[in-house]
């Protein structure tokens, strides 16, 4: 295996709470991404997926503290905090934000905002920059002449396309996309997803897609991580995750997602996720799990490789524990 383009080792994020105390939003996330890979983060709201990818770019507010390493081609970009991460922003890792409606400054022209990072990172200036902006817009399906439009003159879908063009301005290696299609219509969603897949293939981009929508990950990504309560509970090929899940949460999450042609009953998962502002004991999913057994309340399962070639954090995969109960 070649060296991963982006590796995360034991990433933790805490937020100071206004009323005192702190919230352990990301609790030891590790993963490695290969060049050109399309990887997905799935989970419900509050599971820490967005915080995780914001942490990769050091885009956390001042109330956050971070531990762990983020290795970009072997270099720890979080080693010196803001200082060490800022040179890599947009040139190596770029991002498409959730709700592109607000990702653009309403009082500046779209083209200007796409060209801004080019100028900043000394990639192109003046006429060259304008030409490149035009090319990028055409590539995402917007006429180059629209560069002089203001964001409010674009439809939702176009704004999202423009946000993608902006993310590609400095030819990054890794593209993070946070819920890029939420609030868009199905047809526009399909257009955007197709565009992202095409771009990842054409430019050899590593695409990290964050979404709460399992079918999107299933259709777009080859590998994915399922997050719950700030940790990865299962990670591996999307195919295996669907056909042979080794964590009850993954299985139940798929079962809760209606499918167009599958007529099996859709089931909800009872209970709510645990609060992250206090120490968790045992498996965080145990209270909602349909197969929890003796050790789950006390012992926290680690993320270990399973026989299917992926990893899950569940005691059910430990034959010794299972036998003992």
């Amino acid at each position, binding site marked *: 295996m070649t060296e991963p383009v982006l590796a995360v080792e034991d990433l933790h994020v805490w937020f100071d709470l206004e009323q005192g105390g702190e919230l352990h939003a990301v609790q030891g996330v590790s993963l490695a991404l290969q060049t050109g890979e399309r990887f997905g983060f799935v989970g*419900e*709201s509050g599971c820490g997926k967005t915080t995780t990818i914001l942490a990769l770019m050091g885009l956390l507010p001042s109330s956050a503290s971070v531990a762990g390493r983020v290795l970009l081609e072997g270099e720890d970009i979080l080693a010196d905090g803001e200082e060490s991460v800022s040179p890599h922003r947009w040139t190596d890792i770029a991002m498409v934000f959730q709700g592109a409606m607000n990702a653009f400054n309403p009082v500046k022209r779209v083209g200007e905002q796409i060209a801004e990072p080019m100028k900043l990172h000394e990639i192109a200036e003046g006429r060259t920059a304008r030409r490149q902006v035009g090319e990028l817009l055409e590539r995402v399906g917007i006429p180059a002449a629209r560069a002089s439009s203001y964001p409010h003159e674009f*439809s939702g*879908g*176009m704004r999202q396309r423009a946000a993608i063009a902006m993310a590609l301005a400095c030819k990054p290696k890794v593209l993070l996309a946070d819920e890029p299609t939420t609030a868009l*219509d*199905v*047809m*526009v*969603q*399909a*257009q955007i*997803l*197709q565009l992202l897949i095409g771009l990842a293939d054409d430019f050899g981009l590593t695409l990290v897609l964050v979404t*709460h*929508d*399992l*079918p*999107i990950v*299933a*259709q*777009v990504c080859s590998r994915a991580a399922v997050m719950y309560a700030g940790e990865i509970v299962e990670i591996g090929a*999307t*195919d295996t995750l*669907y*056909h042979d899940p080794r964590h009850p949460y993954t299985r*139940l*999450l*798929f079962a*809760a*997602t*209606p*499918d*167009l*042609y*599958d*007529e099996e*009953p*859709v*089931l*909800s*998962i*009872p209970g*709510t996720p645990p609060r992250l502002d206090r120490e968790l004991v045992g498996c965080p999913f145990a209270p909602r799990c349909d197969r929890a057994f003796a050790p789950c309340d006390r012992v926290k399962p680690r993320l270990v490789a399973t026989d299917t070639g992926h990893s899950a954090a569940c005691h059910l995969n430990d034959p010794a524990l299972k036998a003992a109960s």
Partner: protein
Amino acid sequence: MSEEGRPRSDDGRPPLLEVENLVARFAVPRGVVGAFRGRPKLAVRAVDGVSFIVREGELLALVGESGSGKTTTAQSILRLVKPEAGTIRFRGDDITGISGRELRALRRHVQLIFQDPYESLDPRFRVRATIEEPLLVHGEGGGKADRDRLVREALERAGLTPPELFLERYPHELSGGQRQRVAIAASLALSPELLVADEPVSMLDVSVRAGILSLLDELRRSGLGILMITHDLSTAAHFADRIAVMYLGRIVEEGPAREVVHNPRHPYTKALLSVVPQRDPRRQTQPEILRGETPNPVNIPPGCRFNPRCPIAIPECRTTDPDLRVPAGAKRGHQAACIRA
């Protein structure tokens, strides 16, 4: 959902809500200069001739993209928007033009469930007050004790048991799913006959959606008619008896859920179905992606409104505005508005 419990035919059950040729428009402001220059008055034709029926014990899903007019249709039924033309009948009575007392009476029987459970409850009202409100507004429920009983019953019907656990709580003390259940309980307090649910689960986490949808399904079984507005075809396929697909203010295809999903007849429905992502990574569908976005409902194309984006359009489509009809070889009750279907 299992096959059995669904009424597959539309016979026998009396119609609850009949909508015929409903039209709703909003004027587009043209400004001082525009008026001065004699610029034509424009209107958004949000709903442009929509007809459908919801029967007792039936869940009809109105599916469409934003701007298709599905929400305006729902609001017209509750008369939150004034329809410009067409008739709406509830239990056979024409309710299109009613006002005052009659309208208040109608609002007892037809209840709306909103999309956003984080916003649809007054943050200052305890659960009890929220569910009591409809009773107080309509002067129902008699004395305090009676109201208390009705509130508890509504909570239980909405699956919030035991009621004591929830009665004195504020919305911010509840999870999203619980809030949506409280909203549903409040709509049930007046024992309505028709529920209009506008995207009832799209703001909720996946893990609790099924619970809310199953609750609606139970209510349907108990005899309520439900009109569900949604953009999610998968949800509609699982929980609806019938699906009506809307495009630019018009229903372009309508029929039993299973038929519409498995044997779509209208090219728009086909395209829409083909782009719905599926859970199974191995089942890669060949998405038939339409170019561009839904056009502005101010400029509805002449002829078939779908023709500029239609992959199978023929010259005739540019002139003929097709009506809903049963295509050849289709099952009973399945209609599409396409001359090529």
